[in-house]
């Protein structure tokens, strides 16, 4: 199975730059998720890989083969790339039945009729659309159509499978099943998969690697753990995670004795080597409430807070607190013994801190220092 490599890829529509300087390496057999907010260029990137859009600059190759490179005047037509693409809008053929839709790609390959029918039936059964085989796409619900779109691509078993938010219209249970099915296909065939989503949990659970994009540029490429635990910048930190990461911005002068100032003081006193910190991020599940300053764990720092809300989210709870003008979220899996209005102390273990410089980039050297001080 081939890998995909994008080098300095650009795409502009007139003056508007949809994708800028994108370097992306999808390894052979990897399951990569493109994650980013709406309009950040995910679909555009996917379409460039498929060959439905040509590049404005840079180069794209699959395996050893250069597929698209304006500087070398190379362009391989989409129909010759042998990829599978599931469209965000399904793009089912309205005049063909579900069966004919599924079968179309197989007809383009050398295959006996019985083989073809066997394969079609197999895929339709796997995706639970066998019973609709003689219907037209317009007679199916959105979720069913989406499964047909998937079936159509899976039937031909392509080396590279490109999926543009293929699960967005399915209900929760079906979505889980489809995720499992995709995982299974990936494991069984070693297909290289690029999966576009703006759903971070989907990305987290499915991907080997996640590429976070914003405004047409790559923000971070890494494993789900990397992305979550060590976000490369504030955008990634804030985009990933729900409830969102707590950001303490040193630029805003926090009230004295407030959490912002205490965090700043902590860094200045204990880790003077970390220079130029502009803000810190703290994941909601890394912090906890304690009775008072005395109850803080050794090495941890904290600040007095007032509880402003307790929201059960089914198996876990989000506690909203106000820390001297700074609202913060705490996520816990143990039923919290506090009520709105209670006064407590917030406990922050230093290794939970992600330190960003004034421009918002992660100061990676801080990680080692902070994790040691936790001991």
């Amino acid at each position, binding site marked *: 199975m081939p890998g995909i490599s994008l080098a300095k890829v650009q795409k502009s529509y007139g003056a508007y730059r949809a994708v800028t300087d994108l370097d992306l390496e999808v390894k052979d057999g990897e399951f990569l998720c493109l994650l980013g907010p709406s309009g950040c260029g995910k679909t555009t990137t996917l379409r460039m890989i498929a*060959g*439905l859009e040509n590049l404005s600059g840079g180069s794209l190759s699959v395996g050893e083969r250069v597929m698209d490179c304006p*500087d070398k*005047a190379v362009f391989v037509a989409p129909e010759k790339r042998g990829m599978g*693409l599931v*469209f965000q*809008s399904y*793009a*089912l053929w309205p005049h063909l039945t579900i069966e004919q839709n599924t079968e179309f790609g197989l007809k383009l390959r050398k295959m006996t009729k019985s083989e073809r029918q066997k394969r079609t039936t197999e895929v339709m059964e796997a995706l639970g659309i066998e019973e609709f085989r003689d219907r037209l796409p317009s007679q199916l619900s959105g979720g069913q159509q989406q499964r047909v779109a998937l079936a*159509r691509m899976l039937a031909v078993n392509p080396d590279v499978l490109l999926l543009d938010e293929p699960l967005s219209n399915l209900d929760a249970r079906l979505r889980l099943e489809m995720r499992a099915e995709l995982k299974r296909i990936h494991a069984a065939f070693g297909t290289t998969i690029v999966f576009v989503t703006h759903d971070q949990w989907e990305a987290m659970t499915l991907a080997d690697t996640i590429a976070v994009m914003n405004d047409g540029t790559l923000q971070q490429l890494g494993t789900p753990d990397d992305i979550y635990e060590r976000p490369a910048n504030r955008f990634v930190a804030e985009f990933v995670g729900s409830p969102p990461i707590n950001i303490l911005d040193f630029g805003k002068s926090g009230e004295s004795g407030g959490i912002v100032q205490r965090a700043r003081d902590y860094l200045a006193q204990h880790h003077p080597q970390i220079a130029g910190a502009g803000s810190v991020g703290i994941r909601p599940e890394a912090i906890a409430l304690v009775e008072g300053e005395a109850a803080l764990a050794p090495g941890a720092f904290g600040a007095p807070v007032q509880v402003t809300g307790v929201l059960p989210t089914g198996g876990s709870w989000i506690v909203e607190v106000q820390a001297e003008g700074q609202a913060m979220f705490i996520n816990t899996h143990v039923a919290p013994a506090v009520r709105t209005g209670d006064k407590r102390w917030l406990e922050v273990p230093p290794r939970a801190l992600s330190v960003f410089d004034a421009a918002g980039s992660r100061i990676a050297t801080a990680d080692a220092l902070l994790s040691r001080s936790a001991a």
Partner: protein
Amino acid sequence: MRMRYRFRVAMREPTTLIGVVMAILFAYLIIVPIISILLDSVQTQFGDERRTGTETGGWTSYYLIRTFASPIAGIMFWKPLWNTLSVAFSAIVISVLVGGVLAWLVSRTDMFARRWFATALIVPYMLPAWTFALAWTTLFKNRTVGGQQGWLEAIGITPPDWLAYGRVPITIILALHYTPFIILLFGSALRRFDSQLEDSARILGARRGRIAWLIILPLMKPALISAVVLIFAKCLGEFGVAYVLGLPVNFDVLATSLYRNIGSRQTGVAGVLAGAIMILGILTLLVDAWLVREARRYVTVGSKGSMNRLSRLGRWRLPATGLAGLFFVFAVALPVLTLFLSTIMRVPARFAMDNFTLDFWIGRNLDTVALRQGILLTPDFWRAAWNTVWIVGTASIASGILGLLVGYAVVRTPFRPLAAFLRQVTFFPYLVPGIAFAAAYLSLFAVARGPVPALYGTTAILILALMADQMPYASRAGLSAMMQLGKEPEEAAQVAGAGWSRRMRQIVVPIQKGSLVTGILLPFISGIKGLSLFVILAVPSTDVLTTYSLRLVDYNYTQAANAVVLMVAGLALFGTLAAQKLTKTNLAEGLGG
């Protein structure tokens, strides 16, 4: 490198190639003829050398001066211009008044038989306009003109000339013919109008009259403007009615003046006149675009939760229905009945059993000078019928397919300037009244030019001109079909490995089958009743039904002419109704055709 890359991407598929071929084709079929006739108007024509003082082909302002500023400029241009404008304006005023009321009755009240009237009141537009002109002469013709008497004359009442010919009847007929426009466009805007807007004004204490004046009318302005401008543009090129009713009293409009000048081989002057008509047409539509943009700025008709409540007419319900019925009688029943009766009566207006005959349809050895058999037994008629079917049919099929290809090329080519050019060039004939366009064709194709032989007198010139004339509708239909489909179904097939021809055969064409049928059928029907394009380009051997019937009018074969027109009207009417049933399209969309 970059250029080569872009070229390669663009030429990878036949899409751009198709686009380029289309662009060249339409440049030749649409732009070149128009340039040719405009050149005619400033270049010395063969035979005029002495008058202009230059050689054939030399630059001259002779024709411009002759048309606009010579002693005969009055009868050639200014008078016809005044007639055209004044007739158009009066017709518009009448149709807005009549059509506005009818539109309101049909779309917003509980009048009896609303649904039936919704279709019935549109019928005058489905019939060719000069159907009414022939019906009018059948009734009102007086002794000023020879041939068979009019009915009134026959029973001893001589209608005055002003009632029988010229401005009055032309205005009335055009008004009747275009009233359906107002009913359609204004009516559909009224239907979308949110009654809640009305209600909120009423709650604030406004009375009905004020509501109509202050709320409804301003919001209806864009629809009204569109309808008015469309009618005006149509009137500019209107030929048949003015020809039939204006000729006996020398009442010329621009279209008939152009026709006369072409008839008397005044090519240069004809060029000027055609150019003037075109410019008026273009100006009109520019004004329309501007007005509508101005008016649309604040219009939000049919927002969320909009309601359409019917007004109760109460004791006015019956009179209102009567009014609509009256329009139907005058605009449809009476003319059609008159025409029909005239074809089965030997002597006009004598309603006695022995006066009725089918001779004019199927008789033999009639005691007339020529045309000694019924129309259905006349070979010329069948030839004209056959010509109509195959000329209009070929042109419609060709333009339907070309329209779809244009739509495809526009949507799919990565080369944007090409797409823009294709859109504009295929839209252009819309701005040019048919008769001026026909004159342009005549100017270009009357003589052999390079490898293209002289086409005048052949069916080819009719087909080409009709095709080009239909392109605005065809390309618009093709474009909207392609836009609606989007490119993704095709892209999905492409990614699955299907090459271009397979995608066309198995995906694009099958999906677009329905809209292709519509795109062929609607132009076909409007082509059948078309006159102004053919009247310039057809010769006796290439007559279609409309020009054939006009020739019969010229020879004073009243019954035969009426019979042919009746058949054309029937074809147009039932064709339109059937096409609508078949394709489930709305009348308003087929407008303009």
